[in-house]
């Protein structure tokens, strides 16, 4: 046990770690896109469910707080995402890089300001996702693939809003962000 804890501490103390450079730095869209499409179809064929993340967040919260109407298997789906992501990152040459993230923001703003901006953005994003009934994966891929008019409208709206907001930020920051 102490050996395991020691190895974990050593792992997290390293600024950059990889296990095996089996994956390219970035899998091309023409492989990743169809692969994601097949996962969407596979999840429907197995469980009759869309591969969206918003519902998984909601049900994970309910499961953890033991709400009566919680759907507990969705917490397993929620946990699977970082586990798969962990494996994917571990198989890249760059591997894990301990950092704050949000490079473009951090180049211009302090850590505290960046954290506050990111928090506000995430709250608005979460609120909007629940109101719209899906996020990028839920509406943007699974809903559109189901030929749902609501999902196509939501997807076009959030894409347009995100591009316009990014343009606004770019103008306000003088092109820096």
């Amino acid at each position, binding site marked *: 046990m102490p050996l395991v804890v020691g190895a974990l501490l050593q792992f997290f103390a390293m600024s950059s770690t990889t296990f095996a450079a089996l994956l390219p730095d970035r899998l091309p869209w023409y492989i990743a896109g169809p692969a994601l499409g097949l996962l969407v179809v596979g999840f429907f064929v197995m469980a009759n469910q869309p591969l*969206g993340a918003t519902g998984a967040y909601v049900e994970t919260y309910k499961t953890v707080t033991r709400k009566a109407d919680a759907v507990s298997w969705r917490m397993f789906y929620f946990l699977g995402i970082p586990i798969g992501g962990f494996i994917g990152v571990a198989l890249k040459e760059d591997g894990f890089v301990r950092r704050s993230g949000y490079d473009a923001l951090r180049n211009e703003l302090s850590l505290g300001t960046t954290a506050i901006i990111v928090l*506000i953005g995430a709250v608005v994003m979460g609120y909007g996702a629940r109101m719209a009934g899906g996020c990028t994966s839920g509406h943007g891929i699974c809903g559109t693939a189901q030929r749902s008019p609501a999902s196509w409208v939501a997807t076009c709206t959030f894409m347009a809003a995100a591009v316009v907001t990014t343009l606004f930020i770019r103008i306000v920051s003088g092109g820096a962000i």
Partner: protein
Amino acid sequence: MKKSPLAFKIVGLLFGAGFGFVLAAANLHEYDTIHKMLRLEEIDVFLLMGGAIGVSLPLLWWLESRKTTTALAGTLVLSRSKPQRHHVVGGALFGIGWAVSGTCPAPALVMLVSGAGLASITIVGLFLGLNLRDAQVRRSVGTTTAGDGEHRSVANAR
């Protein structure tokens, strides 16, 4: 809280892991990838989404027309709702938040395990925002329903 069957938990875990793996492999967990996409400097993510829809839409259409029986939850059912005001308002809010926080719900989880500490703030914010909306709807309507992009209740899938 009702307990889900083990098979559902295993399938959920495996497909969640597959999803996370593809997100990491395609670098969708990196703020720079999404930022460049939304600045319209790179079209790779748009093409990736198009590729995913291009594969899944015709396959699901075909499977639906054949009334395919799923492995764990009866006949395949696809959701198709009419657009309403909340899809537009919610979509606009989601888009604004997405542009500011530079990542969306699933990639934020991968971003965190890739070593980016600020992703923890994003995840906390997402939980806050989702629950804020849920609480608001529960107060006014009494219950919440799943959208076409969200997991929904099917006969034996609890």
